[in-house]
């Protein structure tokens, strides 16, 4: 089954064509990062206007790359939550229009679950084996930082999440404080490579570092607002040499990523998950990938790192995930709503090996 996926929840307009959930025929992204660079962030109004301008060319490009016609599309999937409402609406209006015009099924996709699926695109054998479950997913992006445990029957629970800022936001805001531009992730990754990770002892929120007790209910939660403030004070009223800047950035990155690694490892042991998967834009970070590999090796777990092209926002994860809903007979009507916030009830995860869900 060939599915067209559309993603417009934030600053990327993306379209992808995926066969049977795993065979990516085309994945196209119209990057708007340059457009937003002047503002230090994404501007929703601008994003919506740009999505509108981008969406048709992006879909047409994906079709051309896949060398298929729109009439060969058998289903259309679109991110319907969570995200910026004006941006989401563009993709949803397009997808609904196409579903109605071509009389093909429409599937609304949760962006958060799609990021998890992004780690497994092209690896159906991994998902088919119940021995790999429960799977622990670390979802780290500009908008989310959470640990999810997925059971073989598809039941999923967010066992921990950020109490304040997301990890990606911590990187973006640090880059802003240090005058490094937007987005913060790639530039911090690059500069940190030449710095000393132990030059500064930045706080590691909710880990019990520096003798600070962690309440049991926050064992798998995150907090990244304190590290940002500590860094601000470390650089305030100073003019940094290139090496000093690299040391600040390397120490900051080590503090943020160190918390992610510690908590993911702790959760994998606690929930006894044979697989740890990491996904979302921050999963592109090379230091995080390296440290998670070491940690997974140390505790004897299999690590599944989402490929960088499926870490950042893309539509292949949307189209791929939709196939799993459709094979369970699940689709959505044209009245499907968009929703800005993440619903913590993730429903049944359709790509789990023993998932059952009523068809509609």
């Amino acid at each position, binding site marked *: 089954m060939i599915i067209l996926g559309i993603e417009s929840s*934030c600053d990327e307009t993306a379209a992808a064509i995926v066969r049977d959930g795993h065979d990516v025929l085309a994945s196209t992204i119209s990057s708007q990062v340059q457009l937003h660079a002047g*503002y230090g962030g994404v501007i929703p109004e601008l994003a919506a206007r740009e999505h509108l301008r981008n969406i048709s060319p992006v879909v047409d490009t994906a079709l051309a790359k896949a060398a298929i016609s729109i009439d060969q599309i058998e289903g259309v999937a679109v991110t319907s939550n969570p995200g*910026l409402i004006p941006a989401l609406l563009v993709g949803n209006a397009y997808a609904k229009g196409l579903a109605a015009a071509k009389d093909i099924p429409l599937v609304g996709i949760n962006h958060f679950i799609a990021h998890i699926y992004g780690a497994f695109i092209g690896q159906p054998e991994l998902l088919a084996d119940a021995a790999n479950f429960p799977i622990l997913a670390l979802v780290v992006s*500009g908008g989310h930082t959470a640990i999810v445990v997925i059971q073989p029957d598809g039941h999923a629970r967010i066992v921990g*999440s950020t109490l304040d800022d997301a990890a990606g936001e911590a990187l973006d805001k640090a880059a802003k*404080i240090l005058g490094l531009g937007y987005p913060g992730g790639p530039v911090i990754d690059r500069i940190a490579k030449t710095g000393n990770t132990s030059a500064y002892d930045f706080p590691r929120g909710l880990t019990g570092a520096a003798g600070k007790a962690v309440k049991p209910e926050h064992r798998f939660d995150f907090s990244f607002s304190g590290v940002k*403030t500590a860094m*601000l004070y470390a650089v305030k009223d100073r003019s940094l040499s290139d090496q000093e800047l690299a040391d600040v950035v390397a120490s900051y990155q080590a503090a943020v990523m160190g918390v992610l690694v510690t908590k993911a490892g702790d959760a994998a042991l606690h929930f006894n998950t044979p697989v740890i998967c990491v996904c979302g834009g921050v999963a592109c970070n090379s230091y995080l990938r390296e440290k998670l590999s070491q940690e997974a090796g140390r505790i004897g777990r299999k690590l599944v790192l989402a490929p960088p092209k499926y870490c950042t926002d893309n539509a292949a994860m949307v189209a791929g995930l939709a196939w799993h809903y459709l094979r369970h007979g699940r689709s959505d009507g044209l009245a499907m709503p968009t929703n*800005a916030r993440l619903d913590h009830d993730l429903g049944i995860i359709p790509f789990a090996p023993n998932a059952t869900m009523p068809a509609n």
Partner: protein
Amino acid sequence: MRLLSKQDDATLTLGRMLAACLPPASVVALYGDLGAGKTVLSRGVARGLGIAEPVTSPTFTVVQEYRRPNGQWFYHLDMYRISDEQAALAFGIEEFLYATNAITLVEWPERIAALLAPTATIAITLTHVGESQREIVLPDHIGRQLLATGLPAGISQLADA
């Protein structure tokens, strides 16, 4: 009125008390740099309004909506990624300002200055004094209400500048 908070916990408690001073349709404009403690004060206000769920940064989503136990709303807005009033209006900001069934708190309000009614907006400014200390400037009528109930531990009044 100028207050000094010794630490985050005190700022949180002040936010909780501040909530009791906010009638429906209140808009609080929260000024302060990155890391000045806006999110902490916002979380305190949310707790004071009866919201128990995590109050996370609205930077990415621009708006976080919370349902209060009394059925009314708490809107937590962050204009950090909004360029100006025009962008805010295109986003649909008017739905979240001065709604009769809601209390709204706006971070980075300077981006939408022209949309905030000066006399109907409670302006609060947070400033770094030290790594954990913050100066908090708020309208006198709010300050008097807080003094009447007693300032929390860790909060002291400063002489007028």
